[in-house]
């Protein structure tokens, strides 16, 4: 990929070189055509010589600029050096033109009778006019290019950060839950083998989906709901009659896209803070329906957070972050408590099929 890019760069450079000098040739040609009207083969040869010398001398300048990394220098530092380089390139350019003219035995028309130094000086002023815009153009191009590349890099970096953030958030499944579930299942093997078998299926489903969740941005709500049902079934084994579960699901919301493992995180939170802390246990209720143009997901649990409970724990801040990364400002998440009830509510813009 790096190679491809380099090749493309080179061809861009040569394209500009040929176009630029082609323009120069054409303008000289037209100038002559309009004012002198006598275009001999000699004259065309002269133009060719100018173009060849121009391309060669500026190419040498470019090699020099690249070798000394002038493009990376700050403007104040490069300014004087560039002035000198422009003068030197103009001299080189002029010498080449004069030499080639000599070789082709072409007359330097009206400067014929002047001595060498004067002719050279005249040529330098003449040809320097081409070198200055060349350098300006070269720098301007690279300046733009640098800005563009920086922008691309920033965007790529942002995308990478976003991806990593989503990954870390999604792969978060509470190990405490897994080991407690395994412990309950081991006890169930003797007490209720059938229930133990089901529990293993439920646990596998949760583990599988938490692994797949890393690859997906959203899943149909139905899939997420099934995971939550498995999860709550397992927690019910653990908490027994201390945990009561209620669902209120609008069937039309089942195919709405939701971030994977998000509802699960909220339910896990409800269990951890609402049920796990209460000696007598409580209720967890999952609600899903449409409200205006939003898919509304609510997790309610009984019990009120004690003073030391931080309502902005990892689960909640990660939910907020995920929604923001996926939907920007269009989604909303809030949590509040009302009497003996804690309610977490997510609003996701509805997807129209």
């Amino acid at each position, binding site marked *: 990929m790096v190679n491809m890019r380099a090749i493309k760069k080179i061809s861009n450079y040569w394209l500009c070189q040929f176009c630029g000098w082609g323009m120069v040739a054409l303008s000289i040609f037209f100038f002559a055509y309009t004012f002198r009207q006598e275009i001999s083969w000699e004259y065309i040869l002269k133009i060719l010589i100018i173009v060849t010398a121009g391309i060669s001398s500026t190419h040498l300048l470019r090699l020099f600029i690249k070798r000394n990394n002038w493009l990376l220098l700050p403007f104040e530092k490069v300014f004087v050096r560039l002035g000198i380089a422009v003068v030197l390139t103009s001299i080189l350019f002029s010498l080449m033109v004069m030499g080639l003219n000599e070789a082709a035995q072409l007359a330097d028309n009206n400067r014929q009778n002047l001595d060498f130094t004067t002719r050279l000086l005249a040529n330098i002023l003449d040809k320097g006019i081409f070198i200055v815009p060349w350098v300006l153009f070269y720098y301007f191009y690279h300046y733009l290019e640098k800005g563009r590349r920086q922008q691309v890099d920033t965007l790529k970096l942002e995308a990478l950060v976003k991806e990593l953030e989503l990954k870390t958030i999604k792969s978060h499944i509470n190990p405490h839950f897994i080991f407690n579930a395994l412990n309950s299942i081991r006890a169930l093997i003797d007490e209720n083998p059938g229930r133990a078998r089901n529990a293993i299926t439920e646990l596998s489903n949760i583990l599988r989906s938490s692994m797949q969740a890393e690859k997906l941005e959203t899943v149909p709500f139905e899939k997420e709901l099934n995971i939550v049902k498995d999860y709550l079934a397992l927690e019910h084994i653990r908490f027994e009659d201390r945990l009561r579960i209620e669902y209120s699901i609008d069937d039309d919301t089942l195919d709405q896209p939701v971030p994977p493992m998000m509802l699960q995180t909220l339910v896990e939170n409800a269990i951890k803070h609402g049920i796990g802390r209460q*000696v007598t246990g409580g209720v967890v209720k999952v609600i899903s329906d449409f409200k205006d143009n939003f898919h509304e997901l609510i997790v309610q649990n009984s019990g009120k957070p004690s003073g030391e409970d931080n309502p902005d724990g990892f689960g909640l801040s990660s939910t907020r972050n995920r929604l923001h990364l996926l939907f920007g400002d269009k989604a909303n998440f809030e949590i509040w408590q009302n009497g003996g009830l804690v309610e977490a509510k997510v609003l996701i813009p509805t997807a129209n099929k």
Partner: protein
Amino acid sequence: MIRAIIIDDERLARNELKKLLSEFPEIEVIAEAANSSEGIEKIENLNPELIFLDIQMPGKTGFDMLAEMDRAPNVIFTTAYDEYALKAFEVNALDYLLKPVEPKRLADAIQKLHLQEERDSQSGTTMNFNRSILAEADQVFVKDGERCWFVKLSDIRLFESVGNYAKVYFGINKPLILKSLNSLEERLDEKIFFRANRKHIVNLRLIDKIEPYFNGGLLLDMKGGEKIEVSRRQTVKFKEMMSL
């Protein structure tokens, strides 16, 4: 026979542990508790030699429960995944077990318990939960914020009164516990722990030097470098005790 109580909020977890313990005839599970308050009640009524204690429970955690008790029994913690809690925990709990419990790990933990019993019986200090006065060999559980310690009373140099709390000095640590100096004084063995003044109770075995002080008082240099003044009234008592 070691009489044990299992404290865990999950019935299935308690059953599972009971089943594993049935392989060890020397352990007799005499009771179970589903939360901390039940736990304290049963420990106080039944005086078990050992408790298996879950850390995360509704209401109070296992750590909170221990911190509330005057004297910490032998504890084996059981937890599903409490990396952080266990790290915070400046060990010498007997042991901890991760659920689901590996039978081999349980055997090791019980082996450790036997070793400890042997050591205790050799040094002539047996745990007796019927005494209301704490003995030197008794351990207390100290919890200060996120950190926890099991401390033998004989390792505590000094109790210092700080408002409603008491600062406990041992090793390089000085955590706060929610107990008044007066209530501590009632429970501590007065042959070992001496009320030097209104603010301090010192461990007589851990005094480095005794110097005379103003007004006929004394200044005690503790082994940890603390200097404690003995009030004039207590100096008389102190001299009496030391001359015995």
